[in-house]
């Protein structure tokens, strides 16, 4: 499937060199592997309290990364991603009721949510920008109302997740943690690979200038559809992990717009349009949430206010501030242009999108 037309002219320009990153990123890869290995070892050294908090962080990070893919790259602001969190949780619940182990149900839920995203896209893609946002919200509300009709899966009150009776609680906590870690790593790796692919190039073009991307032959609609499917599957994975970690599924909780608030604010604060942003944002979110846990809704109020301030005054988020000073990319997805080996800013070297700034922004 070709998303963009091949560039025809490849004139040899010896003085220019195009690289993925300004620095060598092999070490970031190694560090990432070490971090994942250390995280995977956590259940052996920490009590369940710590790993439970980390499971929550993994869920938020997965969601935020998916929202970042939608809003930061495809220009799709969805306020209805809770639809997929809910669907993911219910896929696990329904399969568990029918005797499937919840862990085995997880990948099925991911695929199920990706497939379910197709008809939902067909409905909401008729509307643009702001109206698209509310349409996704209405869809999530409609799905909640429909699911509440079925008393066999708990109706309006929800039900406990079967399939874990007699399981060793220590092992269960550890397994849940590994599942959450695996989902998050898979989500980040797939987003990274996706953005480095041809689709990523098209998405970056859309992000910078949709009209120019269209006129250069980029299939904008198809690229957006693919992103919506991936984000649906990813949010479904997070919902499945949520169901397993809570050991119950309550419809109004899994379909709560609060999920979208959390993923959107974490992304905005960390930095929209970078893979690193949601990671930083999730860290900020977890710190706020844990510090203000005893003050009910205050963490969401503060998170919302911080997100508004960041959206207005530091549009590239916290990671943007880091990037401006260090030109650091832990996950290089763009290209850098070097001229005669000169790499500093004065000679106009930077990410291509900054060298050719988009119009209307």
């Amino acid at each position, binding site marked *: 499937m070709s998303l963009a037309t091949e560039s025809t002219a490849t004139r040899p320009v010896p003085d220019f060199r195009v690289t993925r990153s300004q620095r060598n990123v092999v070490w970031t890869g190694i560090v990432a592997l070490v971090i994942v290995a250390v995280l995977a070892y956590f259940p052996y050294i920490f009590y369940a309290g710590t790993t439970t908090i980390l499971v929550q962080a993994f869920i938020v990070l997965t969601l935020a990364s998916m929202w970042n893919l939608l809003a930061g790259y495809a220009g799709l602001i969805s306020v209805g991603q809770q639809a997929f969190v809910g669907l993911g949780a219910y896929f696990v619940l329904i399969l568990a009721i029918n005797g499937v182990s919840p862990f085995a149900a997880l990948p099925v839920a991911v695929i199920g949510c990706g497939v379910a995203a197709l008809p939902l896209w067909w409905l909401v893609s008729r509307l643009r*920008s702001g*109206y698209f946002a509310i349409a996704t919200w209405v869809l999530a509300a409609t799905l909640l109302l429909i699911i509440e009709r079925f008393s066999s899966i708990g109706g309006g009150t929800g039900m406990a997740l079967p399939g874990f009776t007699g399981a060793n609680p220590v092992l269960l906590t550890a397994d849940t943690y590994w599942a959450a870690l695996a989902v998050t790593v898979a989500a980040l790796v797939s987003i990274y690979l996706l953005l480095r692919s041809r689709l990523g190039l098209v998405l970056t073009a859309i992000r910078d200038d949709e009209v120019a991307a269209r006129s250069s032959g980029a299939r904008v609609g198809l690229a957006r559809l693919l992103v919506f499917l991936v984000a649906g599957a990813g949010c479904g994975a997070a919902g499945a992990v949520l169901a397993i970690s809570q050991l119950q599924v309550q419809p109004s909780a899994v379909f709560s717009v609060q999920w979208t608030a959390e993923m959107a*604010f974490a992304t905005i604060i960390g930095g929209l349009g970078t893979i690193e942003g949601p990671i930083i944002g999730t860290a900020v979110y977890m710190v706020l949430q844990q510090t203000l846990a005893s003050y009910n809704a205050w963490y969401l109020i503060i998170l919302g206010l911080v997100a508004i301030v960041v959206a207005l005054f530091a549009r590239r988020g916290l990671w943007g501030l880091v990037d401006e000073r260090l030109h650091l990319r832990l996950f290089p997805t763009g290209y850098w242009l070097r001229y005669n080996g000169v790499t500093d800013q004065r000679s106009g070297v930077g990410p291509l999108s900054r060298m050719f700034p988009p119009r209307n*922004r």
Partner: protein
Amino acid sequence: MVWVNVIIQGVLTGGLYALFASGLSLMFGVMKVVNLAHGDLAVVAGYIAIGIIFVTHVPVLLSFVIVVPVMAALGYALQRTLIQSALDRSVLTTLIVTFGLSVVIENGLLQFFSANTRGIGVGLSLVTASWNIGSQIQIAYLLIVIFATAVVALLGLQFFLSRSKYGRLIRAVADDREAAQLSGADYRHVFGIAAALAFGTVALGGVAYGMYSQLAPTTGTDTILLYAFAAVVIGGLGSLWGTLLGGVVLGVAQQIGAQINFSYEALAGYLVFLAVLVVRPEGLTSRKAQS
């Protein structure tokens, strides 16, 4: 006869939804802002009315006289500061800022006023009294008053937009901002006026909803914003009278759903919305797609 009653009830609640929807539609039509905090602001208006009535004991219907100007002023102020600076950056930023505002308002109300539902007592005679035709048709006076208010508000808005100086400015800026600016219009001020109108109508809607039903912090999003949006899409984007038609269709669908099974009320409305989205995404009134 039961169904006649259902349809009358639906049409009358449609007036309420039109009050929610017209502000949303106006703000999108003039400044291309989809205000995701729209419904929460209606709830704020309702809570202000409850507070005013509690403190000053003014008659309930008079609370409009205070609440609507207060919300209109808030609308002007918010547009000139927060929303305008978001608009100067990008459409995406306005969505993020208004969504942030929505979450902040909703959780703020939750924090300070608890999740309890509150109604605005209208005085017994108006609530309980109804106009009975036969034994099957009962129309509460309150609903008639609300519907009449909605029609008067829409007529007033229409008159303002088509006849007054500021109405002409608003239409000019909505049509072509640069040209209006070249002719000496300060578009930021005009945007502020449009926002004041939108906030005024949604304040009317919020207080009316508090009288008709109950308000809670979450009412703003799970009822008012989503119903307003459904009414806008059903009626046709960017059409003022379309919002009334959309509200009426939504109201009738909900009442028919509620008649079949009480819990189908909201679902029936959304299903009609989705059906319109599939069959006529440009809405029932507009001639071509404007989305």
